[in-house]
């Protein structure tokens, strides 16, 4: 049975370097999946293939909510359903916080200005930054910017949210506020795929944890299993390196 997000034989090379070596993966609707693994293991590349920010080999197949991830019209349909949060926020610096959140619903969904503004304010309240709505992103802290980025992605009412190391660029004291927003989001039934180095978050929030290494999925399981009883040497080695200090 194909999952809500279905990945079949995903291959991707950068020149001679094989970044993804035939990954197959099914993710159910509403599931929260955390992808962990060493740098360069292909975690980010994997989730960037889901909305085709990265091209992948023609024999690979990905679909989201039954829509194949290809090019052209069907890609636009997928991207409208898939929200993404980046490591470096990527807010639009020339627009106010509220306008950042309003832009895509107005341009892609044809929502009116008034309705988009109302929705933006609701979302900004939900991520706890309603007072900053009229400021420009550059004046906000990293944690605040990332929460705006989450609100911006949510404004499209996506069925799937991709998080590409959302806390890696943050000062340590701001990691918590972003993870809190993500935790509350996990309880709303939106499907979440999170590439992260935050093992505490993965343990606490994920339905399944995926350990990747060298372009392959090494191990998949419930967080309790993976963290307490990893089956593979590579997983054990990685976990002992990140957890024991």
């Amino acid at each position, binding site marked *: 049975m194909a999952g809500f997000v279905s990945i079949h034989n995903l291959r991707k090379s950068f020149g001679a370097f094989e970044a993804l070596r035939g990954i197959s993966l099914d993710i159910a609707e509403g599931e929260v999946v955390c992808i962990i693994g060493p740098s360069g293991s292909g975690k980010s590349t994997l989730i960037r293939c889901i909305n085709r920010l990265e091209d992948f080999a023609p024999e690979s197949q990905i679909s989201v909510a039954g829509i194949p991830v290809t090019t052209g019209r069907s890609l636009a349909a997928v991207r409208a359903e898939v929200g*993404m949060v980046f490591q470096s926020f990527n807010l639009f610096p020339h627009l106010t916080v509220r306008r950042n959140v309003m832009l*895509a619903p107005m*341009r892609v969904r044809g929502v009116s200005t008034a309705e988009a503004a109302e929705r933006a304010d609701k979302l900004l309240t939900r991520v706890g930054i309603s007072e900053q709505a009229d400021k420009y992103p550059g004046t906000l802290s990293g944690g605040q910017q990332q929460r705006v980025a989450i609100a911006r992605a949510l404004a499209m009412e996506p069925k799937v949210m991709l998080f590409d190391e959302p806390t890696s660029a943050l000062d340590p004291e701001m990691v918590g506020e972003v993870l809190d927003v993500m935790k509350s989001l996990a309880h709303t039934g939106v499907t979440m795929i999170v590439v992260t180095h935050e093992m505490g978050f993965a343990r606490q929030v994920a339905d399944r944890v995926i350990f990747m290494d060298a372009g392959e999925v090494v191990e998949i399981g419930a967080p309790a299993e993976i963290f307490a009883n990893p089956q593979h040497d590579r997983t054990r080695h990685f976990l002992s390196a990140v957890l024991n200090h």
Partner: protein
Amino acid sequence: MDIFQTFFNIDVLVRTFPLLMQGLWVTVQLGLCAIIAGLALGLGLALVRIYGARPVRLIARIYIDVFRSIPLLVLLIIVYYALPFVGIRLSAFLSALSALTMVSAAYTAEIFRAGIEAIPKGQFEASGALGLSYRHMMVDVILPQAIKIVIPPLTNNSINVIKDTALASVVAMPDLLKQATQAQALAANPSPLIGAAIIYVAFLWPLVAWVSRLERRFGGGTR
């Protein structure tokens, strides 16, 4: 005859002033038309050069390189004196306008390209991930940021275009310089040339100062 009588002859200047003003008006018309046409053509060339299919991209690139290499005076003389041999006979104004536009567009295209390429990749990715179409990405996200970056160099280029209009006097355009040389011949006194120089400077100095201010403001880079 002292130096003032020769170069700053008030009598001659007052007499030829209306002529110089006519010339300035032609210079301004020619300059503005060339700047606007060059901006439009240049933006189109830049977009083709960055996003076009391979063959058109190559054509845009060749165009840009050729017209940045050819001296404007040479191009102007070709357009005005050589093209009539193949039946293309343009007026002095149109010859000057097309030569200025062709060269200005090449420089403008490079300026726009640099501006667009200076926008971080994350801005394109965020736009794509949100599902924005190419057109909305450019209009709402990329170009508003790129324009801020390119305003100082574009203004600089515009100043150069206005200065280069003086070359049009070689194809008998009655621009400021041409009027001044004619007035000089009539009055048998070079004061009108000095007058023209002063008018050029008075006209362009504020623009030059404005560019410096813009460069100070945007140059630091607040983000």
